[in-house]
């Protein structure tokens, strides 16, 4: 069973603010899911290479050529803009 403190820590790392009710909910749900996931321990994976992608492609390279981007990416931001910069709240 995941503890309440663990849920609060994970929420912090996730940058999510949870209510007391949500903390309990996540505690129950995640504990249930991870209890079930424990079964992976049964699988012998000694000496097995991990798979993080399935294409088998390695070092997909292309010429280092700058392509002109035509979209307006600044428009995607909901923040105020000053010239070509996005104005964000204070860091601290």
């Amino acid at each position, binding site marked *: 069973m995941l503890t309440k403190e663990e849920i609060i820590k994970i929420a912090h*790392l996730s940058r999510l603010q949870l209510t007391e009710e*949500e903390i309990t909910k996540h505690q129950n749900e*995640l504990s249930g899911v991870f209890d079930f996931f424990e079964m992976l321990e049964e699988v012998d994976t000694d000496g097995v290479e991990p798979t993080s992608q*399935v*294409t088998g492609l390695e070092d997909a390279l292309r010429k280092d050529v700058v392509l002109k981007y*035509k979209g307006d990416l600044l428009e*995607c931001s909901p923040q105020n803009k000053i010239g070509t910069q*996005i104005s964000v709240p*204070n860091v601290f």
Partner: protein
Amino acid sequence: MTIPTTIAQAKKMLETKEITALDLTNLFIQRIEKFDAGENGIGAYTETCFDIARKQAEKLDASGDFSKPLAGIPYSLKDVVSKKGMKNTAGSKILENYIAPHDATVAKKLEDSGAILLGKVNTDEFTMGSSCENSAIQKTVNPWNYSKVPGGSSGGGSSSVAKYLGLFSIGTDTGGSIRQPANFCGISGLKVSYGRVSRSGIISYASSFDSIGPLAPTVDCCARVLEIIAGHDEKDATTPEIEVSQYSSVTSSDEKTLAGKKIGVIKEFTEAEGLDAEIKKSFEKSIETAKKLGAEIVEISLPLTKYAIPTYYLLVKAEASTNLARYDGIRFGSTSECENLDEQYLKTRSEFFGEEVKRAIMMGTYTLSAGYFDAYYLKACKVRTLIKQEYDSAFEKVDALIAPVSPFSAFNIGEKIDDPLTMYLADIFTVTANLAGICGLSIPTEKVNDMPSGVQILGKAFTEETILEIGNVLEKEFGFTDVREGEMV
């Protein structure tokens, strides 16, 4: 005038000037206005672009040139596929007002092929879900029974194609999100091999699993779309330079034989707990049908099947938590007013992400955090290797596998939403294809429990041609297309 129900039919009508592109476009627009819009509609389309569609159709008519492969064919994009100037919400509040600044490679290729975009269609939030109920934008229902879910996450695509509100839709499949909704709505859906279709311009769920493909009335329609959208893209480094076949050359024939084809049946799937008895019976009938058509049926055992769900969910939620880190209230979509940056991250993400997305981020963050990485994430990566190997050796023995798509038929809206683990377990027949990177084609066979049912044909990576060929023969033999046309047109 009655609508054409396949791409081939529409193409022929346009080429012989039996109908103009504008009239065809308007026929589909009228259907959307009649069946999709409003409180009592299906609710598949989240945004439409009828004016642009009509203009494009007029231009085609004026040129009189219908030689482009999909000239005048109306379609929709799942609301995670970028179309410049249109919203791309991913079914999320956090992107509710986000307008795509460019076209996804797929959208660009389809435009170049002459296809006419009617709009964007609903999805579970960030494609996480199997019922479309996780969409924060709107509710979508199953056109066969409005109290049932359309499946998900490509539920907008499946419901709209089943009701002929377009002749195909582009969806995404991370663990079944094309095949399962296609199954629930009685249409065909193709999950391509990982890397067969470019992911550029498509909002990511889990980057090493996501695949892009068509949902369409028939297997032949899927093939015709695939030959346009497949291929290497320099904007997606995971698309190998493997030749794109003329997939429709194997699906346009009316030949009804599977002679010479060796098809495997996965023992662990047939014995799976929770497989609805009626669906199982129907599946066994499909195997008999394949046999009758000349296929050699071989039983295959894939003992690691029982580990597929934990492996899959550990990995996709980890990848999702990383991909969703970009939604910080600075670069995209919605934001909360705050005093400092950290508070802004916190408030924006808490306010605008839905429940399943939060659950995914929590799960993924946990498994990737210090102390748990090896036990969960790395372990799952290794089991993934073994599952992939199991499929590799299965495909040394058979040309393709035949399998059920979902353990049950389309369920009632609200019936399963509160139980995440049960929802996860229901993905047992679809997630292995994404773990192994292979391709899978979902086709409708018959009605079971008064809703459409079907099977999927799984093939080795980059053997789309084989599964389309087999799927086409089975689809024609079952003739579900006639049932659908009878009820949906």
